[in-house]
């Protein structure tokens, strides 16, 4: 059996990876909470952000953490345009159509990246990619410690935006009562697009945090998309605290099952949780009964 240090280290590293998962799920759950759509293109949009970070690093030698400052506004704008001018008009407000349009978009994005960048996996080498932080007897991966810190900061920032700004107020109003919000003069398509844009900006932050220790290929996002859905369903569709706790839990589960069953079977734990939650408690831990 493993020594307790190895188990605790693995679980802590899993917890910190879970924080980045949570950041990805945060955008997904926010979009669901306001627009009531399952954004199937979320994984593909993460891949776009990761490629953007990679290009900035490979072409201009920019540090992946610093590149968030450029990629986040770009992803914000991209998300806004996507929702306002493509997803919204093309789906005529029908649930099933939205699902199909976002599925179509994910295929388009994934394969456009495949045509542009080929299927090679790409990494960024920084001098801190493999650095470890020593805390007592424990060795923790430096990029993951940073990931945890930045996730907490981003969540706080998001909370401030949602609770302390007019845009945030409008977003919460539309989430609660769409018709009422539009009656008092809030432009619902604009708020939808803003929400989608914020979700995409979260992805940019996640991309910057992932790239120093992870790789990107056109298919990378697809690997994250089911994990992100699992987190969102586990935490409760539309619930922000649910996404955070769900993310940390999933990180733990992945680390534990990876440790005991090996990497290839490790993912099964996540999907089984997903299926069980969907079948027996589709509202998740913090979701509201629809």
């Amino acid at each position, binding site marked *: 059996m493993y020594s307790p240090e190895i188990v605790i280290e693995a679980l802590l590293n899993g917890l910190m990876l879970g924080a980045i998962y949570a950041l990805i799920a945060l955008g997904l759950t926010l979009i669901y909470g306001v627009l009531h759509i399952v954004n199937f293109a979320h994984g593909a949009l993460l891949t776009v952000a990761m490629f953007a970070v990679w290009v900035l690093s490979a072409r201009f030698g920019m540090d992946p953490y610093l590149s968030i400052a450029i990629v986040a506004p770009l992803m914000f704008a991209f998300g806004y345009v996507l929702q306002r001018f493509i997803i919204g008009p093309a789906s005529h407000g*029908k649930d099933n159509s939205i*699902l199909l349009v976002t599925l179509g978009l994910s295929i388009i994005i994934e394969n456009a990246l495949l045509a542009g960048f080929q299927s090679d996996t790409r990494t960024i080498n920084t001098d801190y990619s493999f650095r470890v932080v020593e805390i007592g007897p424990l060795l923790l991966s430096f990029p993951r410690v940073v990931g945890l810190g930045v996730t907490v900061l981003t969540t706080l920032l998001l909370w401030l935006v949602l609770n302390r700004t007019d845009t945030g107020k409008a977003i919460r109003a539309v989430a609660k009562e769409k018709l009422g919000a539009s009656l008092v003069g809030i432009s619902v398509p604009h708020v939808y697009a803003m929400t989608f844009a914020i979700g995409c900006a979260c992805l940019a932050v996640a991309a910057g945090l992932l790239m120093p220790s992870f790789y990107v290929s056109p298919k990378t996002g697809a690997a994250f998309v089911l994990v992100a859905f699992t987190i969102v369903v586990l935490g409760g569709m539309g619930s922000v605290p649910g996404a955070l706790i769900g993310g940390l839990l999933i990180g733990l589960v992945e680390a534990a099952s990876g440790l005991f069953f090996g990497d290839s079977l490790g993912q099964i734990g996540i999907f089984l949780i*997903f299926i069980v939650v969907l079948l027996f408690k*589709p509202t998740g831990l913090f979701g509201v009964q629809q």
Partner: protein
Amino acid sequence: MTGRGLLPVAAAVAVLAVIPFLGISGSLLNLMIFMMIIALAAQGWNVLGGYGGLSSFGHAAFFGVGAYAMAILQARYGLNAWLALVIGIALGALFGAFIGFLSFRSGLKGSYFALVTLAFAEVARILANSANFTGGAAGTILNLQSGVAFLQFADRRVFLLVVLAFVAIGLLATWWLEHSRFGAYLVALRENDQAAQALGVDVFTVKLKAIALSAALTAASGCLYAQDYLFVDANIAFGSWISIEALFAAIVGGAGTVLGPLIGAIVLLGLGELTKGLSGGIPGLDLLVFGVILVLCVAFSPNGLVTLLRRLGIERRGFPAKTAKEA
């Protein structure tokens, strides 16, 4: 009413049966076989997604069960190919009923149903990729043995006819669906399942039968795929590509119509092949085209190409266009 609707179905099958004997090239023949296999998978998707309104994102689960059953039963247990085909279809239907039982008991529909089917297909993929029974990551190879008993033919046109026969069965099954009480129940619960239930439709049983039929057709497609390529691995059998192509073909052609999936498969794969040829083999470009077509279809012709063609045809002859409800 009864016999007339079958005329276009018979015509389509007859045309497709004649084409291979017009001296087409080997690669075109291969493309046709592949088109028919995807059409069959899409017909399966259409029963549940088109008529029942339950969009599955994981029909690979049924395709894969069929493909693996075909491969393992023959390669490992030396079973007769036709028997393996029947068992493969039955196992697919059973797996469909199993997933359906769990999901419909919990009342899953819409995006929740789409996600849970996707997760089932992924679990199947990971298990097939690591179990010894399926040949693990190396996959399972079928022996090359020519002969009717082995469902392998020296003349590939014969194999095309076999696949086409299954597509014809799929067309007939869908046509039956449109004219049977069962199909009417299914459409009723698509439009409003609470109202259907209030009127006395046993919603759970109808959905269960629909997913079993849907899975059986897609499993048959998986069986024929394995038989055609004589090789199966987890990423082929349970990969998301087949879930996506089955769904795309049905929706682009016209979900909830008899000929839609067949037309969708021919149009999509034809365009995909054309893109591959024109672009000189840039990877992913054909799928990119699929995605664009899907989004355009949902935006401008939500009822698919079939309805679009029908509308154009009727309008030209001076009749008012059929609305989606009537069609």
